């Protein structure tokens, strides 16, 4: 099963469960019925917020490798000197 079909199946299953419940398949207390109806919209917005928050957090904590850059620069000097000694013409 491809990822796409997995998602479609999940949507169909959850969607039909939600539709059945909102149309009164089970006798649910009014409090439940009230939150059930807007639930998909609410979940969508929450997912969006989660996505933004997670990406924002990961961008903020993206590790900057200053040491690696410095080390590379000094190794480049070393490499050029050594290679020139061995006969490399740059």
């Amino acid at each position, binding site marked *: 099963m491809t990822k796409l079909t997995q998602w479609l199946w999940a949507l169909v299953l959850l969607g039909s469960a939600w539709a059945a419940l909102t149309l009164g398949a089970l006798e649910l207390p009014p409090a439940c019925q009230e939150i059930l109806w807007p639930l998909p919209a609410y979940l969508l917005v929450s997912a969006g917020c989660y996505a933004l928050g997670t990406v924002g957090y*990961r961008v903020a904590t993206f590790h900057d490798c200053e040491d690696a850059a410095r080390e590379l620069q000094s190794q480049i000097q070393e490499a050029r000197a050594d290679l020139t000694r061995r006969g490399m013409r740059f």
Partner: protein
Amino acid sequence: MASKRTKPNSPRSLKQTEVRGPAQDKYSVLLPTYNERENLPLIVWLLVKSFSDSGINYEIIIIDDGSPDGTRDVAEQLEKIYGSDKILLRPREKKLGLGTAYIHGMKHATGNYIIIMDADLSHHPKFIPEFIRKQKEGNFDIVSGTRYKGNGGVYGWDLKRKIISRGANFITQILLRPGASDLTGSYRLYRKEVLQKLIENCVSKGYVFQMEMIVRARQLNYTIGEVPISFVDRVYGESKLGGNEVVSFLKGLLTLFATT
């Protein structure tokens, strides 16, 4: 060394693979190059240093696609300096693409492990011994360098680039659930037969090709280990990331989503 596990979908007969004991492991580095005249001597010097310092048996295969800037000339000098048993020149006439470069390189590789990496100094060879150690530790089929976990990271990226990178990775994780944190990275160690099998099965190009390899690897039940790496952006030369890349990345991602 423990006997090899057998896995579904990946039969390995003794005839096909080179059976080597741990003391005889050899690592072939595939370096596809295009206009890397400035960087090539430096990356080769760093590779030789890393391998020699750790006593690892290696060879470096340079696959130049007819670079007009004299990369080939520089490669020939390196072959003279380090010996043609360590530096193998296997050039091609024109720019043909990464997948075919790997295939071409592997035909001439005598190692039982293949390391792929960028030749522009963004991937530092000092991580290769760590890749090797990780591979031995978990007997992994693939070890992938990751910029997103542990103390992996980047240098020289502005905010926009970081946002695009993290955003793309987030979408990829949600849609593909690949089991690896860095899918577009191209700094990896593969068992030779694993890389061969994956390339046979992959159809995409560019960034998406690297992603597809990991996704196919999961499908074929290969095991993947990760090592945090530092990615130092562009010391010399021009970067190859543009608006077109983002669009083709999204197209490729959706294709993988719909077909795997």
